[in-house]
């Protein structure tokens, strides 16, 4: 029985079932580069499908990675027909909510509340809530699911998330479970006080609170089911070959497994492969590569059933579509330090 795990992401990149791919890890390990590379390779290998790359990191750098500005709405990457990018901007989303509240207030008599909101009070208020970034990212996921169900707007076959550092991401992934529990409690309360709540909160607006809650609950449950389905959702861990990164990766994997999420791929970035690079083999590179090799051995031992992809440290920054395309090829075909060495010096430095 052949159960050898390939040291590449070929099966993921060519997967036709996955709808949600999360890319995450410790800060500064190359999450954006890895998620962009995965998205590009998927788009190149499955031209008939539409892909969306979403950055849920409050400190966005997707625009910098591609060298073009992306906003809160999905926009196609220049030079690619089936890959779009967007950066979820909590501040902008909250401003929209604020504006909506003002406009709905001005439809009435223009009371004190709309005067207060003119100063962006709602955005200020909600912007300071811990975890609001994750909540907004989650809302975005819900929006996409709804669109797909209703067949509205642009549809995407697969959404790739360039996530925030580990802590944020775990909070984001916990949201469906937390919300499901919370909504269960709400349902209990509204089941008892439903008619009274409806008459209080929906007076004049004909808002069916119970109906809305049930709808939200169903949506959350759908997301929860999809996130825990290994054929639909997977998580790609990104790390570097250092102790803290390895430790955090292991904890991240264990956290994800405790949420019943599938995780089977690890991208190890910034490897020096110094012994194969005779031309640029400095003492510092040698000792650093020695340290990297020590942790690489441990990674190979610990993650023998995972797709461990070893990516090289390039001479320049990996920015712009062309550089990303060149770099991302090593996700499909394992990097060979001897034959592929020239590629890492070919990458154009955008700076």
């Amino acid at each position, binding site marked *: 029985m052949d*159960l050898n795990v390939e040291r590449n992401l070929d099966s993921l990149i060519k997967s036709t079932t996955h709808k949600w791919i999360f890319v995450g890890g410790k800060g500064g390990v190359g999450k954006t580069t890895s998620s962009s590379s995965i998205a590009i390779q998927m788009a190149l290998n499955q031209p008939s499908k539409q892909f969306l790359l979403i950055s849920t990191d409050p400190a966005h750098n997707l625009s910098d990675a591609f060298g073009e500005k992306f906003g809160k709405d999905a926009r196609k990457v220049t030079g690619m027909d089936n890959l779009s990018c967007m950066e979820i901007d909590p501040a902008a989303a909250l401003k929209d909510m604020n504006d909506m509240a003002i406009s709905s207030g001005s439809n009435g008599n223009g009371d004190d509340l709309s005067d207060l909101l003119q100063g962006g009070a709602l955005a200020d208020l909600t912007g300071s809530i811990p975890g609001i970034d994750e909540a907004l990212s989650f809302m975005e996921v819900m929006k996409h699911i709804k669109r797909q169900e209703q067949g509205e707007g642009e549809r995407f076959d697969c959404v790739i998330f360039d996530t925030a550092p580990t802590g944020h991401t775990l909070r984001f992934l916990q949201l469906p479970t937390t919300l499901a529990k919370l909504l269960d409690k709400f349902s209990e309360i509204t089941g008892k006080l439903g008619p009274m709540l409806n008459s209080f909160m929906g007076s004049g607006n004909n808002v069916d609170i119970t109906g809305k809650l049930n709808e939200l609950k169903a949506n959350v449950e759908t997301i929860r089911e999809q996130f825990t389905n290994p054929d639909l959702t997977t998580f790609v861990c990104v790390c570097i070959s250092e*102790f803290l990164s390895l430790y955090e990766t292991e904890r991240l994997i264990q956290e994800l*497994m405790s949420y019943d999420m599938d995780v089977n791929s690890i991208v190890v970035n910034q490897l020096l492969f110094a012994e194969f690079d005779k031309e640029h083999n400095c003492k510092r590179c040698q000792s650093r590569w020695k340290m990297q090799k020590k942790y690489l051995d*441990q990674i190979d031992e610990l993650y023998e059933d995972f797709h461990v992809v070893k990516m090289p440290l390039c001479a320049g920054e990996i920015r712009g579509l062309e550089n990303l395309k060149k770099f991302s090829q090593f996700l499909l075909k394992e990097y060979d330090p001897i034959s592929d060495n020239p590629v890492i010096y070919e990458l154009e430095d955008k700076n």
Partner: protein
Amino acid sequence: MSELSEAEKRRILRERRQQKFSNGGASSRLNKITGQADSHLSTDSPIEMKTARSRPNSKDTTPSIPSSSDASSQMKTASSDSTSNDPQLEILKKLANADESNESTPDLFSLLRSMKSGEGDADKSTESMAPADQAMLAYHDYRVNRLKYMTMLFKWVCFLFPYTYLVTRNAKFNVSCLPESLSFLTMPSNFFMVFTSFEIVAISVYYQRLQSIEAENKINTLHSTSKIVQMVSMVPEGIIPIPNLKGKVVTALQYVDVLSTFVADICFVLVVLGLLMYI
């Protein structure tokens, strides 16, 4: 052998990964990572912590509403896990079980007593016992009573009667046939000291023997047979502002038992003294 499909291969690999992280594997992996770098970072596994958290209230994590058969099986499981975590729930369970077995609805006192009986092995009330337990209790009663009466007989026949006789003889006839030490003991002025010392020794020996019988039979005599203790068992904790009321009552009853033995022996001595006055 046929070639595995991609989905099948993914499933097997997933199971293999989960296997490696289960049964303490998760924390040993973290230990391995931190051990090699001589680090002091935490090696508590999130998987194991979640399992530990969910174990005591695993019912709460089940999102679906259970069917009636599931509910009853869950109830049974819960009752076997923890006997009486929630007194109100226990009463409801008892009522539900009584309804299932077509028995008449039990009264509140018997429910309270049966709830309390779950607190310890020795607490079991006689009504809720199996026939084998009742036979054991009867056998235990027989052994305790036999010990009690044999001790009493021994004390009265072998010591108290002869001693009282000697004391009265010593006072009446002032015989000098007894050795010096014994004549000191049979002096009427020393009677109470000797009697009290003997009572202390005899009662101690009696209680030691009683404890060994209780240990053999695994039955606490006062808990099982005393009506007062059973009545006190019916009082729920917290209603009366005395903590561990049952324990205090059991201690008091033990003192009463000792005192009654002592009083019975004094009574016997008085009767013997009265009789000897006419001899």
